């Protein structure tokens, strides 16, 4: 166990100190910061912050003007003439005119020069008007009226629902799913390289006379998983900070809630999904003498993990489609499909359980197989495994329950 820890620590420190890791890890937060800064800059420089006037001879807005606090500053004018003078003088960007007969006509006139006030200003005025009109009502009725409609779309069986008031809570898990899978697949390169490194730099013989192959592979997989988690944590924390900042400037983001259920499922599936890809990649790295050949085969495995991406539309239109159920249960596609379907709220418990069991089982088998292949291939410097012989030996190993495989190697 101690040796596994030493290998894991060595692998972790080796990878996180690499320039490529630092650059790729910082690129994402940097991207978010730049996008955020540009958005805020654009918002600040293009938004007209001048006040907006209103002419209200009937005194309808009097009540609201006292109670409502909006981002827009509203200035009352006695008549249209003085408001127009202020508009022409550039003191205000626009003004609303509520005619004397507003309670009957329900029509408001908006005066401006070249550009209409933006949507936020119009929303603020509507709020001011709504509060003013509801001023005399019972508090409960007043509150309900001001809240407006809250639309919840729910499937007939009640399993799936879409809350229009919290649309970002639905979109976020979907986006995060891509982040998870790209991070895991991104680490596949490290995993592939992990065993190829020791073969190429010839340290494998020294290591194998000190520790056993299980300790070596487990240590490397754990070290690289810690690298992946570090990268993911940095990205998620940055994303969270970015969202917190963005909330101040973007109203709809304020309804965002932490998707704990989604995070729980992601955490549950992360370890076995990582184990599966680690096993497959390390087996590939062990089987091929050179990194380039290994990368070609590794690329095919990556594709197996990313197949659900090509069916994203189906997740939106029919999350219970039989093909998606198959993807949910199939180990390589399970992680991404489960996360995407979870975002739609359409994942029966039995599928979740069977998917996790199959994924965990296949992860254990792949890690075990990678150990056997590593043992066969570790000393075949610059050579590929004779796969016919390898499969025969593996079959022998399974029959003999753990006796060691013999392979064709240099003497």
């Amino acid at each position, binding site marked *: 166990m101690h*040796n596994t820890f*030493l*290998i894991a620590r*060595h692998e972790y420190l*080796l990878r996180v100190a690499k320039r490529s890791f630092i650059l790729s890890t910082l690129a994402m937060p940097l991207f978010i910061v730049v996008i955020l800064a540009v958005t805020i800059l654009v918002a600040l420089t293009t938004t007209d912050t001048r006040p907006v006037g209103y002419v209200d001879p009937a005194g309808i807005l009097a009540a609201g003007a006292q109670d409502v606090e909006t981002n827009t500053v509203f200035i009352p004018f006695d008549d249209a003439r003085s408001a127009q003078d202020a508009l022409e003088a550039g003191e205000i960007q626009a003004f609303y005119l509520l005619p004397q007969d507003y309670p009957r006509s329900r029509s408001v006139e908006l005066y401006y020069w070249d550009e209409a006030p933006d949507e936020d200003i119009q929303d603020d005025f509507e709020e001011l008007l709504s509060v003013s009109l509801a001023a005399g009502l019972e508090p409960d009725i007043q509150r309900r009226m001001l809240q407006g409609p809250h639309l919840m779309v729910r499937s007939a069986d009640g399993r799936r629902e879409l809350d229009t008031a919290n649309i970002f809570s639905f979109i976020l898990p979907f986006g995060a799913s891509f982040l998870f899978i790209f991070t895991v697949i991104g680490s596949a390169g490290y995993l592939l390289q992990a065993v190829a*490194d*020791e073969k190429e*730099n*010839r*340290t*494998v*013989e*020294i*290591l*194998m*006379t*000190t*520790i*056993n192959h299980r300790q070596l592979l487990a240590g490397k997989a754990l070290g690289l998983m810690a690298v992946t988690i570090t990268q993911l944590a940095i990205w998620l924390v940055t994303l969270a900070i970015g969202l917190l900042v963005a909330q101040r400037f973007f109203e709809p983001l304020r309804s965002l809630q932490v998707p704990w259920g989604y995070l729980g499922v992601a955490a549950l599936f992360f370890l076995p999904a990582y184990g599966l890809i680690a096993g497959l990649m390390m087996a590939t790295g062990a089987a091929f003498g050179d990194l380039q050949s290994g990368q070609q085969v590794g690329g095919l495995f990556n594709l197996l993990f990313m197949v659900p991406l090509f069916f994203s539309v189906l997740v939106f239109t029919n999350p219970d489609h039989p093909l998606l159920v198959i993807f949910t249960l199939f180990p390589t596609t399970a992680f991404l499909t489960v996360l995407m379907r979870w975002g739609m709220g359409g994942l029966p418990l039995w599928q979740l359980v069977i998917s996790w069991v199959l994924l965990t089982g296949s992860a254990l088998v792949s890690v075990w197989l990678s150990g056997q292949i590593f043992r066969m291939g570790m*000393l075949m*410097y610059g050579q590929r495994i004779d796969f016919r*012989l390898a499969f025969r030996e593996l079959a022998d190993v399974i029959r003999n329950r753990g*006796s*060691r495989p*013999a*392979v*064709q*190697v*240099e*003497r």
Partner: protein
Amino acid sequence: MKTVSVSSVSKRFGSVQAVSDVSFEVFPGEIFGLLGPNGAGKTTTIRMMLDIFEPDSGEIEILGGRLDEEKKKRIGYMPEERGLYKDQKLEPTLVFLASLKGMSSAQAHRDLEDWLKRLDLWEHRSKEIKELSKGMQQKAQLIATLVHDPDLIVVDEPFSGLDPVNTRLVKDILEEQRRAGKTILMSTHQMNQVEALCNRIVLINQGRSVLYGEVSEIKRRFAGNALTLQGQGEIPPLPGVLDMRHQNGAWQLTLDENSDPQEILRQVAGLDSFQVERFELTQPSLDDIFVTVVQEGRLSAEVANA
């Protein structure tokens, strides 16, 4: 007590019999030579000893029993295929390898300082290994083999890539380890180093053990009926002597297989025409023995195949 006991060990890879019925023992305080031509099965034998491969048959005992995780920490191995983490700095790499052998980080740093200074690598400890010369990397590998003070040291071609100064340094270190009671198993092609360092050897050819024993005894065994005589005067033809040549100021006498060298000495000593100054049984070098045995092996194999 034996440090290494290899008993009737065999290993086959597919259709190739890599090692066949090889046996030898290695004891504390000796430098044991594992010799053989390329592809003879030396590396396979070492890998079986170190549990990288499992033999098809035979028994191997290391440090008094089957090799386990604890015993692995008492072994220092320098493989023929040299390798260290090229992109990493020298000292942290050596500390990592030492920690896998059970040393604490603090102890490893302390002991490494002595080794790095002794092998002139102290100034280079913060360099990446790929920046070091081949000879420096070779010395770094030797440090990785010895820093944890192993009881069994297995070195495969320890002198390859070293200049004469560093060759002498490595020889001195191996001698020092032997004097300290360590068991050293050395595989090399450099017969002069074997003659200078090894007490006993085993020669493996085509997977089989063809010579095994003390170096002096093996040389005596291969001496044959040949004598070297040095002195003043002329030696007439003598009974039992097949050939007599004067080379480099000495007489080389080839005896027939029934002649006794001591009898020839008595005859020469009785001659009035020759005054003996030096008399010795002519011993072939290990290099000659190696070539003779390997060529005989090839000849036998060709005859068998024919």
